[in-house]
């Protein structure tokens, strides 16, 4: 089981290294353990997260790709779909069947045909367009709806923090 997971992860790593999507880097933290990856995601242009480079950790289960990996940002994040501890709440990371929020259609769920690249691209679009119905971070969702200016300010602060630029 773990063997096929490993092979799949190696193939995905190869794919991501040879044809990296714009502004995204992902790979195993160390080559002894292919089940723990680090990813860097660049905030999409034209959004409040523009220009930021956000580090995240991906943990793969031994039965990957049957089960989805878990993703957690390792930097400070303020976003309606990201828990305060950095965990990402996004439908592609949930296997059909477990639906914590009860609003996801199974079409956008995890299945073995998805990939790390698709997860990361989904996360990029999630950064661009938060889903304020999912309340992973209620404060952020509320502020996104009601006080967009303050939300953008916080986002800018986080962006600068990830780049090491003093605010």
């Amino acid at each position, binding site marked *: 089981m773990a063997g096929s997971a490993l092979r799949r992860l190696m193939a995905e790593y*190869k794919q991501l290294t040879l044809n990296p999507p714009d502004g995204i880097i992902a790979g195993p933290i160390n080559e002894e353990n292919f089940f723990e990856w680090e990813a*860097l995601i660049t905030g999409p242009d034209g959004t409040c997260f523009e220009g930021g480079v956000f580090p995240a950790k991906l943990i793969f289960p031994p039965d990957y790709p049957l089960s989805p990996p878990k993703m957690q940002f390792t930097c400070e994040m303020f976003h309606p779909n990201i828990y305060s501890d950095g965990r990402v709440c996004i439908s592609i990371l949930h296997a059909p069947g477990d639906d914590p929020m009860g609003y996801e259609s199974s079409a956008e769920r995890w299945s073995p045909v998805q990939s790390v690249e698709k997860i990361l691209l989904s996360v990029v679009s999630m950064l661009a367009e938060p889903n304020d119905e999912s309340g992973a971070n209620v404060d952020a969702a509320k502020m996104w709806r009601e006080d967009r200016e303050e939300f953008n300010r916080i986002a800018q602060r986080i962006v600068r923090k990830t*780049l090491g*630029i003093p605010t």
Partner: protein
Amino acid sequence: MMEGSSTSQPDISNLFEKDRFPKKTWQLVTLLLYSPLGLSLAIVRLFILVQAFVAFLILPDMTYARTVFLRAIGIVLGVVLHRENENERDNSAKVIISNKITCLDNIAIYLTSGAITWDLPSPLAWALGVLDTTDGRKPIVSKIKSKLENHTDSFLLQPEEATTSGRVGLLKFAPWSAKVSDTMQPLVIQVWRPRAMETSADVLGASTFFNVFWFLFTPFTVFKLKYLPAISREPNESDEDLLGRIQSSIASELCVSATKHTAADKAEYEKLYLLECRRPVLVTGDPTALARPEIQRMVFQVAEVLPHVPMDVIIYDICRTHSIDLTISNILEGSIPFTPIPELRRAEPRQTPVPSRSSPPVVQSLSQGQGQMISFMERKAKLIADARRKYIEKHGLVDAWAE
């Protein structure tokens, strides 16, 4: 277990001959000098064999023809029998049970005892009309039994089911062989060839064709056959115990150990061994290929994806496949064995992501060449540095760090 079977089991890798050729220089020299003669001998013998085979197919009388044919094969193959104690043959035991050294043991035994076997190379087995083995082991036991009841012929079993060198250990006897008869006479086979051109009769991983070819090439091959006292099943003795006793008696006569490795273990080990033999060690082939920029680029790209794979392995495979994808999947699927580069050598000078204005790591590592790739770390540092530069430019900030 009885005496002769040592307490520690020899490793399966030691049970077989691996080199066809002798190790001493003078033997190699004689072999080389002899080779033109040997080759002509092999060709002549091959023609005689084919003729004998055709003649045998035409001859109507099966039993008679078989005897003549097998004797002809024996002579043509250069089988010399060294019968240690032929008068010890116990006619009450119809089944002879022996160890297996070469694929032609059974011919030698037939020549001395008339004991037949089904375990012949398939064209021979078909021509001789010996037992049809296509329908599995179970019916064979009953077929042999009925054959034994109807005829006075004796029958040869080689329950190791695979050859060994006969110098280190015996394979475990297949359990079905105990069902054939309750009284069996063990027969010990040893094989040798003239010292001056001592080639191994049966080499691990060699096909039957090559093994037979070396029979044809060598002037003669001596089969030393020695009967041991017949062994009968004791009351309530299990199959395993009976076979164990027989195996130990043959093993102690040969002064080797009776191991628990089976023929299936040998097949498994043989596969591994052959894989090991094909392992590429150094870059061979076209030395100019490396100089070509596209080959270099492909090698670097593969090394980037699989930094733990030694360069020479990648270069070797790229020169062969000319495709990054093929080589990567070859390596990932394990069809190219290699020793991974230890972590220490890879993790050399690697800074913490200090942002820099330009992107020298790329150029540097490429010019450093061997082994030092644009690592994941460096790519990360570059991404952050680029994003930072863009951000600063866009917002018209002064880069405090660069000052």
